[in-house]
């Protein structure tokens, strides 16, 4: 590896690059898809390549290839420099990186049971058992169960002398049950819509106990077909972690990405309402109970690593403290523009993509006091919403609308009957300011998504969210006419 990284860096420097970094990434993936008791797809994939990023005349260039030879390293470094020179023809501000000592070291995701060493038959068997448990419930239309594992071997080197090796492993699995009658299509997912995901080994999958939980969730999917429609109105809502994590992702994670704030995603995903003047003024993002941190060191999170893809060490960066907006997800290029150092949030989707500012683990810290169950017991009249079904938010991350798979009516502190097709909507800061209870450690759990999209060409990110559940007052529930 050293030979290749040295070669690419030397070539870039000799052609005029003032900064260069090179990443060599090998990625192994395995997936199992089961539908209604039959194994529809088992796939294994492997990719390997190198990407070279350079600064020439203050402008960026990047090129990548799947051929790991010194000749190709030369060609790619040369192509990156030529691209950077083309960038320089439309440049208004030269890129400046923050000052930083070279990074050296090695990091590996702690894994107890290597998911790639477990026999395929066993992994298929575990998933089939869960899928069958769901499918055997009367009234189920179809079931979809999935398993996935990904491992990356990443080598990073830069022209300042950094050299880092990392091995990152992520696994996930879940069971989705669908019930259909007439125009009504209901779904329940265990443990989460899209599956439960962690930076871990197969021990996490076993711990989910999929086949033990799939049946009761399937029964709920069927029961939803005859449940009453969730009525519209201004309501108190309690969000289960399986919905709250995505609320944090969309309404705090994305708008605190500093590249969005500076407009570099404007042509695709949009910008952010959390402009830098709001950082200076101490903008009230939420109620006093709202503490949100971007923490790349949380055990088990899919945003956990040793160093980001610019060689910046993993760290915990407060985003919202006692409800006040205090920080951003940032990079070596963006952080100096607000007088800070990079918070270490640059992550690339493989060898053929540049790093972008991405979420790490965006966690809503638990609050001592009430457990999630006690929050329900403390609620006289409200709704308990679980498992995301649909999400949408505007291009500055203010107006959102979410649908969940299920609502449970809360009356007199007790969870009662099921209600179908719940949705809720609001404006980000109004919503977070209406938060009047956050669950304590007892329900604090690491969730996440392997499907966070950003950038052109598109990149998919794996991010984590640790949450305990929370209550919000006076929220608009329901908008539809069906």
């Amino acid at each position, binding site marked *: 590896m050293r030979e290749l990284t040295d070669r690419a860096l030397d070539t870039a420097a000799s052609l005029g690059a003032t900064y260069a970094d090179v990443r060599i990434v090998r990625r192994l993936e395995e997936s199992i898809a089961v*539908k209604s008791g*039959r194994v529809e797809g088992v*796939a294994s994939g492997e990719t390997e390549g190198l990407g070279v990023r350079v600064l020439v005349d203050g402008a960026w260039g990047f090129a990548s290839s799947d051929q790991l030879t010194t000749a190709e390293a030369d060609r790619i470094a040369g192509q990156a420099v030529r*691209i950077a020179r083309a960038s320089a023809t439309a440049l208004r501000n030269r890129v400046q990186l923050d000052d930083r000592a070279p990074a050296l070291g090695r990091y590996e995701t702690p894994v107890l049971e290597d998911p790639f060493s477990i026999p395929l038959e066993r992994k298929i068997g575990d998933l089939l058992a869960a899928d069958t448990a769901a499918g055997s419930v009367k009234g189920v239309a179809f079931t979809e169960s999935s398993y996935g594992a990904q491992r990356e071997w990443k080598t990073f080197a830069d022209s300042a002398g950094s050299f880092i090796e990392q091995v990152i492993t992520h696994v996930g699995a879940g069971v989705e049950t*669908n019930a259909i009658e007439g125009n009504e299509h209901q779904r329940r997912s265990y443990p989460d819509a899209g599956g439960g995901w962690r930076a871990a080994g197969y021990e996490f999958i076993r711990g989910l106990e999929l086949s033990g939980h799939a049946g009761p969730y399937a029964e709920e999917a069927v029961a939803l077909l005859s449940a009453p429609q969730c009525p519209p109105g201004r309501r108190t809502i309690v969000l289960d972690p399986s919905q709250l994590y995505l609320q944090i992702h969309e309404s705090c994670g994305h708008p605190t990405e500093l590249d969005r704030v500076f407009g570099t995603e404007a042509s695709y995903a949009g910008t952010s309402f959390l402009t830098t003047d709001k950082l200076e003024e101490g903008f009230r993002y939420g109620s006093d109970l709202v503490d949100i941190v971007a923490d790349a060191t949380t055990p088990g999170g899919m945003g956990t690593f040793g160093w980001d893809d610019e060689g910046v060490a993993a760290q915990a960066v407060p985003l919202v403290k006692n409800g006040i907006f205090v920080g951003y997800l940032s990079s070596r290029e963006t952080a100096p523009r607000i007088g800070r150092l990079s918070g270490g949030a640059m992550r690339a989707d493989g060898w053929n993509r540049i790093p972008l500012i991405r979420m790490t683990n965006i966690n809503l810290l638990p609050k001592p006091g009430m457990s999630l169950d006690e929050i329900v017991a403390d609620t006289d009249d409200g709704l308990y919403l679980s498992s995301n079904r*649909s999400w949408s938010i505007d291009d500055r991350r203010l107006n959102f609308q979410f649908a969940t798979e299920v609502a449970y009516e809360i009356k007199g502190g007790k969870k009662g009957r099921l209600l179908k097709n719940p949705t809720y909507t609001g404006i980000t800061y109004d919503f977070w300011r209406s938060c009047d209870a956050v669950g304590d450690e007892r329900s604090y759990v690491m969730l996440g998504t392997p499907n966070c999209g950003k950038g052109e060409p598109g990149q998919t990110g794996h991010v984590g969210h640790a949450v305990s559940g929370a209550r919000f007052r006076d929220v608009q529930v329901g908008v539809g006419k069906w």
Partner: protein
Amino acid sequence: MVTERDPADRLALADQVLRLAERAGATEAEVMVTAGDSALTRFANSEIHQNVAETGTSLNLRFAIGKRIGVASSGRRDADGLRRLVETAAAIAGSVEELGDWSGLPTADAGHSGGQRAEARAAGTADATPEFRAEGARAVIAEADAKGVVAYGSFATTEETIVVANSRGIRSVEVRTNSQLLTVSMSPDGGTGYAEAVATDATTIDPAAIGREAADKARATDRATGLDPGDYPVVLEPYAVVDIMDMLGYVGFSALAVQEGRSFYERGKRIGSDLVTVVDDATDPAGLPMAFDYEGVAKRPITLVDAGACVDVVYDSQTAARDGVRSTGHGLPAPNPYGPFPLNMVMAPGSASREELIGGLARGLLVTRFHYTNVIHPKLAIITGMTRDGTFLVEDGQIVAPVRNLRFTQSYLDALAGVEAVGRERRTLRGFLGAVVVPSVRIASWTFTGATEH
């Protein structure tokens, strides 16, 4: 090293893997090779800030032992990499249960061999340089400068060779190119505007025209004011109509969605007004043409909606076998639990000019595009999303003011039923996975359910 651009080399590679698979005990095998060079120049704040290129080859092997199927993919094509690819796929096929209704890989007589649609590749895209893309970016930026707005966007060029070869005689080879230029203009007075062009040949895209369209729209939306949500008639520009095509393709026009009972589709069911005709047509040179799908099967034009009534849905080989019909050439790469997808939806043009479309609104909204849409109710195709980059109030047939963006919660089926007029001009735009050719439309009623601050 220069990329091995010769499609014959790719076919030889596919044949080599097929032979290895057969030697490893495959009763049937399919190899897909995708090899390409793609590059994208991205600009923001009226300067190029990201500029990337990629060279890569990927192999996808579907390996069958009787009715047991394994799929493996790899970016490696050295001898050791190929051996591992075959071993992995064989091991998976050896571990899974039989697919009871597996009907086998598509055969050459039902498929297509050696196809190259001439319109699928353009040298203007294949030979595009970083300097060419930078020039396009500068042309967009110059238009923005002229209007005192700021340009954001991207200019992408891709050349890709697709080879699908299988043990039942399919040998499909095609080189395809595509290019996309898009821009969002943002004005210091709050306005934003969008424009986009997609073409097989990057040299046919006029960056200055795209830049001008977005910059003019950004200026036209300066100092937008709030409007109460509610039901309004709308004119949707092609950028918004794309989303209706994509979403209906996703929730309804796939044979798998019908087979699983989750589609709105029934043959003959009326879902649109008489003015709505939609065909999936990969032969239409107005789109991004392609000769065959990811199973190597020739693409057939499929009428999805004819004068408002549902006609056909699209099939891959597996869903086709289940219904006892032939694949229509709409398979995605294996393994594919999502089913077939219409990649090339084309909506028939109408006769209305832009002025006539807008002129028919007594009091309504002109919507440039949608943002972040998502399904709320799949069988009724109820979708929520936001407007973005150019929303205007129209009164007595005249644009009277820009308005802040609104959230909608709307059945796209009801929308098609409410189509009152269809534009005669169409645009080629990027869809979920392929390219879509669409006009503007006027719709009798659209339900807006919320508002935002910009």
